[in-house]
């Protein structure tokens, strides 16, 4: 068993009197897809926002590549190589694919934008992800389908040699064919050596691509399990009751 690239231990977070995360442990491994599942209000979003630096946890330890780190803001997590693709994608419809991928981090050539360099890099990244569904990378995002937009958002996240990519419900708004495409892309990310954290409500998706499943139940991590060792019914049990007979965790 290799060491996790990102490891959380004993994370706690409250909003006023509401204790949202209670001593949560969580691991993500390079080259693997770890699915974070749980019912509404279980604390999935809070947990990833703690990783992304949007919230700061009250207590708990974050280890990244074997070193203890502090994440106090979005910059910290970006600098570590952690990228988040939020559910609303945060793309500018009026800009083209290249412009969106480099938004906020444009390459410069003196005071002017280095368009050709950015375009080449963007094309290379999309090629590396085997994305061939877009006709031109100079078309505006408003002309893209939902799946293509998701692809652009994911490509933007991996453009920066990131090590951990967090995907928040990437297939929630997609049709069947596009869901298949995006799941293939998620798998490819992991095969390229990234640690992928996938938040999903859809257990079919989770069983299709995830190597590990981490079910949250009312703010506590039930037990992080290997996908091949569990059945869907057991995961449902973990999500709804927090325990299930005969399930062995990876870091137990």
């Amino acid at each position: 068993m290799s060491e996790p690239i990102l490891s959380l231990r004993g994370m706690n977070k409250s909003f006023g009197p509401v204790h949202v995360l209670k001593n949560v442990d969580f691991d993500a491994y390079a080259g693997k897809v770890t699915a974070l599942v749980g019912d509404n209000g279980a604390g999935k979003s809070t947990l990833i926002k703690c990783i992304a630096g949007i919230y700061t946890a009250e207590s708990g330890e974050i280890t990244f590549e074997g070193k203890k780190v502090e994440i106090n803001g979005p910059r910290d997590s970006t600098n570590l190589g952690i990228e988040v693709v939020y559910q609303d994608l945060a793309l500018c419809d009026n800009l083209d694919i290249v412009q969106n991928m480099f938004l906020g981090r444009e390459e410069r050539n003196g005071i002017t934008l280095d368009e050709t360099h950015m375009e080449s890099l963007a094309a290379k990244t999309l090629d590396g992800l085997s994305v061939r569904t877009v006709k031109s990378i100079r078309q505006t995002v408003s002309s893209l389908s939902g799946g293509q937009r998701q692809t652009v958002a994911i490509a933007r996240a991996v453009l920066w040699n990131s090590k951990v990519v967090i995907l928040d419900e990437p297939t929630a708004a997609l049709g069947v064919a596009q869901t298949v495409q995006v799941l293939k892309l998620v798998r490819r990310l992991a095969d390229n050596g990234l640690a992928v954290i996938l938040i999903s409500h859809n257990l079919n998706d989770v069983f299709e691509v995830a190597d590990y499943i981490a079910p949250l139940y009312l703010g506590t991590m039930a037990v992080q399990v290997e996908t091949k060792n569990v059945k869907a019914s057991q995961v449902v049990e973990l999500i709804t009751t927090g325990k299930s007979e005969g399930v062995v965790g990876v870091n137990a």
Partner: protein
Amino acid sequence: MSVNTDNLAAADEASLKSAVLDYVAKVKSGDIGALPAFLGLITLGLVFTFSSQFFLTARNIANLITQSTPVMVIAMGLVFVLLLGEIDLSAGFASGVCGATMVLLINDHKFPWYAALAVSIVVGVALGWFMGTLVARLRIPSFVVTLSTFLAFQGILLLMAGNGGTILLQDRFIIAVENNNLTPFVSWIFSIVGLTIYVGLGLNRILHRRRKNLKSEPFNLWLLKNGALVLVGLGLTYVLNLQRGNPPNSSIKGIPIVVPVLLALLVAGTFLLNRTIFGRHLYAVGGNAEAARRSGINVRRVRTIAFMICSGLAAIAGMLFASISNSISPTTGGGTTLLYAVGAAVIGGTSLFGGKGKLRDAILGGLVVAVINNGMGLLGFSPGTQYLVTGGVLLVSASVDALSRKGANVS
């Protein structure tokens, strides 16, 4: 070799076709661009040429251009604000206030014209900073902020004009901007050098992209656009170099000095919008402010700077107003000025919803507005009818903008 060129030609033809298809797709996705304004301008030009013998004369064309420049410059400033999805209703009176500042500095404080102009631009930028800060930090709707400053600036202008009412300008350099012309020889040089640089840069860009194996604009299309531009440019230079005074009493020939001034602003502004990080961020904030914020863009700063640029350009328009009428009056920048400027930007293709538009829209739309007024005036229509028609054209443009946006959201 011949096979190779054949293939190249075939590829070019195919890509011209695909360029047309791309444009249709672009329109469907809500980006209608400047084509309607362009076609409208040609249509209007043809209609007025055939219905009035005075329309296509050197004198009328020169007048049309010089008189519409202040509104075009204000419209250029408004493009920056409109790209954010905001509005600046006070730009007209900001130009009046800044123009009055400049003239008073020249008259009462004996400033040289360039120092007075520089101070008036600084005043404009400061006014823009004030409004931009209120909009960006307190998130007061720009409509309300600039409506207040619209009234306030009108008040300031009245106070500055004082009891005399009108402040006369006597500086011959400032007056020359709108009233004098380049000599015919210099006009030709200016026109040929300008066009050569433009065409050369475009060609260089295409070749650079080809070298890097990136998709570039179809060569045919580029040739078509640039050929048309060169023809229009040289044609205009020829017409403006014709005698339009009454020799031997007066001789008026050449490109009005304000044309190079306007083009310089256009080039500088287009560079800022298309080639710099600030420009990219401006479009991003106008398209999706939340996405821009999450990408680490300082949204407040972008918003504030846009208002500063808008009022700064209004200050330059104030100089042009002073130059045209040799004076600043309490109504300078009032009346229909702001409405025509907003109309010019929107008719040119800038979206009121933010995120879409180019600086050249201001000039294209400004020409449409100017041609309507000029042509209808020549045909003897009353100002009432002119307002009605201009209002109708603006409404049509805004509807096209809204409908194309709606179409994009449905698909």
